[in-house]
């Protein structure tokens, strides 16, 4: 499949420092989210806990459980989403602008493949990178929570996180990647693409602020609804991207 060949080629072209970042960035995600979770046990965190409906918690939940729930299911997911979206867009920024910088874009566009396949090929590497990093982070956090809070009524993995990892993260990652690819196909320098593309995280910031202020409760249903809207947007952007490439250089 030509799209896979492009993704393989892109992977081989990744500079060494970027391959190292594939380890560093999930490590950073794990560190930040673990900090959220472990700070849940502090007395300050429990005292400052916003009022949450009791129906959210299993019977017999302690203040520590409530604090852990708040950190794990309300604070951490938007932050996680933000990082999972930012990681792949740095890769996607290079997709076309980098080819243009290296004078290989003309050759790539002269290959006998549909614009949609080319766009898909350029999507695969950053998307797999973002999803892979998220999955590793999720697994590590799951282990940390279960080892550190064995007696808590708050379980991990739970439905919120499963929906987040397997539905919402891919939807947002794809959104970030597609927006970035569109920008990358129209600018001359990867640097410009990164700058403009970073604005992609703005909608996630809304979720983040909504979460920490207690306005938005990130339930599995809300995550699914948001992801559904984002997937729809992804589809439209995929069409736009393919059309944009088919118009040529």
């Amino acid at each position, binding site marked *: 499949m030509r799209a896979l*060949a492009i993704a393989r*080629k892109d992977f081989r072209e990744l500079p060494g420092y970027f391959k190292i970042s594939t380890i560093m960035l999930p490590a950073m995600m794990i560190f930040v989210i673990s900090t959220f979770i472990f700070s849940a046990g502090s007395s300050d965190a429990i005292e400052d806990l916003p009022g949450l409906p009791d129906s959210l918690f299993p019977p017999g939940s302690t203040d520590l459980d409530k604090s852990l729930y708040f950190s794990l299911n309300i604070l951490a997911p938007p932050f996680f989403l933000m990082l999972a979206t930012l990681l792949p867009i740095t890769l996607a920024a290079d997709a076309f602008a980098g080819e243009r910088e*290296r004078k290989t874009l003309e*050759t790539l566009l*002269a*290959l*006998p*493949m549909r614009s949609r396949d080319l766009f898909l090929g350029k999507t695969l590497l950053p998307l797999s990178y973002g999803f892979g990093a998220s999955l590793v982070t999720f697994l590590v956090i799951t282990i940390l929570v279960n080892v550190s809070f064995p007696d808590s009524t708050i379980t991990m993995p739970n439905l919120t996180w499963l929906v987040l990892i397997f539905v919402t993260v891919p939807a947002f990652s794809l959104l970030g990647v597609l927006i970035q690819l569109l920008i990358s196909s129209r600018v001359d320098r990867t640097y410009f693409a990164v700058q403009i593309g970073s604005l992609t995280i703005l909608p996630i910031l809304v979720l983040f602020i909504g979460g920490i202020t207690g306005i938005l409760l990130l339930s599995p249903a809300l995550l699914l609804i948001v992801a559904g809207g984002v997937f729809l947007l992804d589809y439209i952007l995929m069409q736009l991207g393919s059309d944009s490439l088919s118009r*040529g250089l």
Partner: protein
Amino acid sequence: MSSRPTVVAQDLVKKFDWLTAVDGVSFEVNEGEVFGLLGPNGAGKTTTIRMICTLIAPTSGRATVLGSDATSDPIGVKESIGLLPETPSVYESLTAEQNLDFFCEMYRVPREKRRSIIDDLLSTFGLEERRDSKVQTYSKGMRQKLSLARTLVHDPPIIFLDEPTSGLDPESAKMVRDRISYMSKKSGKTIFLSTHNLVEAESLCSRVAIIKAGKIIMIGSPGELATGKGTTYMVRLEGNTEEISRKVADLEYVLKVENVDGGIKIDLKSRSHGPDLVETIIGQGGRVTEFVKETRTLEDIYLEAVR
């Protein structure tokens, strides 16, 4: 050589905002020929190639390659061509072998044939010893050879070469020219060559088109173009050169007269007017000491055309 047209451009126009880069270009390239597109920088050569190769859409007009329309069937066009852009276009972080393997996969070369094709191309272009080196360690000449090799992985019947020897050392340039000649004569491929190098064009091309400010101003074989511009004689004589020049310039079959150091350069409509010219000069009291027919090179024709 067959006369079947493989590349056809019909009244191609490309406008970029206020600039008309290509303005009504039409030509046909026949199967198996080396067709040269010559012109100064910014004349519209690369834009014309890009339209034919489907990289940009024409504002109006039509281009076809082996019957496939560049606008409605871009994949059909792309499958039958190999394109070598002006700058070496290979992936520098990959090795030569990885580059060729990637292009084999993109052109759907059967897996079982890839190894022999890659070996053959690397050997042909003298790159087999560096097959596992990253391209970023290659010289410009080696990159250009690898670029040319990658245009051939799918054995396309038509090859577009945009300034293929630009910036190469003489040895590498000769190697590329030899390969172009081989591909045309031995493999029967149609070559579309855009170049500034007029000596190269004259030695390789069976026909050339000269493009200036987006318009084709001359088209034909180098020989036809030379004949079309008349025959030039260099005449050295004793006598009143200026007076004789004026008289000669009034003759009906004389296209142009130019006084040059020690003689007169005269363009005639046809070679057959040579004896009449000599007779006229003698009749004006001149004594002809030298009468030489000048051979017009493609460079002479080109420079006259683009001035």
